[in-house]
């Protein structure tokens, strides 16, 4: 199994998806920090209106504007943007029509939410359109403003629909300004500039969803990037002890002898508890291994990210970024 590849290093748009709750937002943020390490400028984008980035970086909600939110080791910078579909629609309409004050009123009435409900594809086209604009934007020196863009994307169940702009456009007007814009989005998303990473946990359901998503991405001619295996628990037992212990066989006498050697004199009850904990640990390690084995069928570069017992705060994001850098992310 390889980790980060040369090909992934060339990508400029890193889309991060995965089953709900597996750690998309956390990993996207850590990935942005990792990519920024060494002096690059990276933009981290969210699109679901949840202010997940602001929460993670422990700051006030992000406006619909790019802001610098973190420094990365070696002079790098992470900027962030929360794209709001309504604001994007108004911005978009304003490019072609003069709505004047009506825009705000329409928004208050919920008319815009209505328009995006009427044509669910519209929302996705608007969001990916804005992402493309950020990826392609150049500074006054003619170089890309951002070295890389990381997108905290919708979960695996919806991500292919989200990225399959061609399909979405089939439901929308066949002519007009939005058509022209979406052609550029399609080009970007299907090019080598884009990689769609999948965050997985080593549990049966998330692994299956990951494999399904890989197939679905392939089917839509989108490029799966890496599998980011999140929340991996450390395997404490010597490898050969795992299968036996998982079956409930732990050599109690050996454990006791070892404990005594370390000066621990434990009662029978505590010892039994330790044995039970060991069996549960072994079952878990074994099922992690099985899940890993299943994941390897995807044949994608794989990076393991450890479980952090104390949860994720800003400092922990830097820790996770270091793990990614050590795995070759750049």
């Amino acid at each position, binding site marked *: 199994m390889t980790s980060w590849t040369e090909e992934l290093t060339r990508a400029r748009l890193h889309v991060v998806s995965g089953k709900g709750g597996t750690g998309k937002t956390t990993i996207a943020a850590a990935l942005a920090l990792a990519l920024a390490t060494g002096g690059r400028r990276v933009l981290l984008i969210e699109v679901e209106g949840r202010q997940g980035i602001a929460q993670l970086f422990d700051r006030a909600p992000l406006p619909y504007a790019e802001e610098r939110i973190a420094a990365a080791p070696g002079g790098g910078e992470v900027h962030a943007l929360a794209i709001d579909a309504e604001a994007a629609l108004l911005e978009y309409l304003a490019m072609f029509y003069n709505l004047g004050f009506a825009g705000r009123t*329409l928004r208050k009435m919920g008319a815009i939410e209505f328009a995006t409900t009427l044509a669910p594809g519209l929302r996705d086209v608007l969001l990916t359109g804005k992402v493309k604009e950020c990826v392609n934007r150049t500074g006054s020196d003619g170089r890309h403003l951002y070295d890389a863009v990381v997108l905290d994307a919708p979960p695996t169940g919806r991500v292919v629909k989200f990225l399959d702009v061609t399909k979405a456009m089939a439901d929308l007007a066949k002519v007009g300004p939005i058509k022209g814009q979406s052609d550029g989005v399609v080009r970007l998303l299907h090019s080598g500039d884009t990689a769609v990473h999948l965050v997985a946990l080593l549990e*049966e359901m998330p692994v299956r969803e990951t494999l399904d998503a890989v197939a679905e991405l392939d089917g839509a001619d989108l490029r799966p990037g890496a599998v980011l295996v999140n929340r991996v628990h450390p395997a404490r037992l010597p490898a050969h002890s795992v299968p036996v212990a998982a079956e409930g066989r732990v050599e109690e006498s050996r454990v006791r002898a070892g404990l005594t050697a370390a000066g621990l004199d434990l009662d029978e009850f505590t010892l039994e508890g330790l044995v039970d904990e060991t069996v549960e640990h072994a079952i878990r390690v074994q099922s992690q291994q099985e899940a890993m084995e299943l994941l390897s069928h995807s044949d994608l570069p794989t990076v393991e990210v450890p479980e952090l017992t104390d949860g994720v705060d800003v400092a922990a994001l830097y820790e996770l970024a270091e793990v990614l850098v050590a795995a070759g992310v750049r």
Partner: protein
Amino acid sequence: MTKLDFDPLLDDLETRVLVCCGSGGVGKTTTAAALALRAAERGRRVVVLTIDPARRLAQSLGLRELDNHPREVVVEGFEPKGELFAMMLDMRRTFDDMVLTHAGRDRADQILSNPFYQTISSSFSGTQEYMAMEKLGQLVAQDEWDLIIVDTPPSRSALDFLDAPQRLSTVLDGRFIRMLSAPARASGRGLLKIVGTGFSLFTRAVSTIVGGQLLQDASTFVQAFDSMFGGFRERAQRTYELLRSPGTGFVVVAAAEPDALREASYFVERLSDEGMPLCGLVANRTHPVLAGDLPAAKALAAADDLDRSGEAPLAAAVLRLHADRVAVADREKRLLARFTRAHPGVSLVGVPALPADVHDLDGLREIGRRLAGE
């Protein structure tokens, strides 16, 4: 903290409906199925309405097909004192049936084949919640079971179960579709006067974006749907009322993690605002320490000793995995204590993470025992 005690609740014939809510992936479906199994084994005639159960779990309940009707769970060796029925929600079919019931035959066909209806009934984000409520209403009306246990759709936020039906109503009541599709006719109304020319510009802009056909479909749909909309909203309202009645109880499921507990907090507060009855919180997939007398620091120090001598690798590993477990358990206890401080009146039960997934009756029975605090 009071302990949530499920057995008296399940045994009480006054308990008619239990709704299992919580944010995504916390164990709602598992909890619903485990409670239903336990109630049936304790003598109730139970039906459990599951939503998107994992395939293996569905199979173990004998749910091979999604036929939208409860089936009795017949499994070899399973002889409950009461009876257990199970079903999986088919949201599309539930919606279609509703249309068939409320609209005349001709009009129903017109609605069912409308492309806009197809979008709304298969992918609008509130539809599954609405249909879960609708199905619950139907099961109650059928009056064949003395206990109905309802799972809720996978959703980021537990609140969606209460809010989504309203969202769907708003879309279906068609105010905007009418205006978008017939601005001329509607322009005399007050609302439009306020927005004035901006609105017709907006309409034009929107129709150049979404295309005239889509607006046309939407408008046809709304016209056909209009006549049944009143009945539709009334039903939703009735089910909502049912959720407020004394025979109903909400079981909030959460993982002992910050996000899930935050969602659970919002939900608990919302229930209390709405006057909806809360049974308590299930803290699912906890990792209680099994060797409680050995402090983590002591275990780690001993493991370090052993590693230095290299003598007893197994014992050293056992000590380290114990220390990991203590750390996890401490964090879980801290998070749950924080929840309890904020909601001292909410009773709570912890269900340990079983080492393997729960996908058969034995697994469900085991969860049931833990739910009952055994």
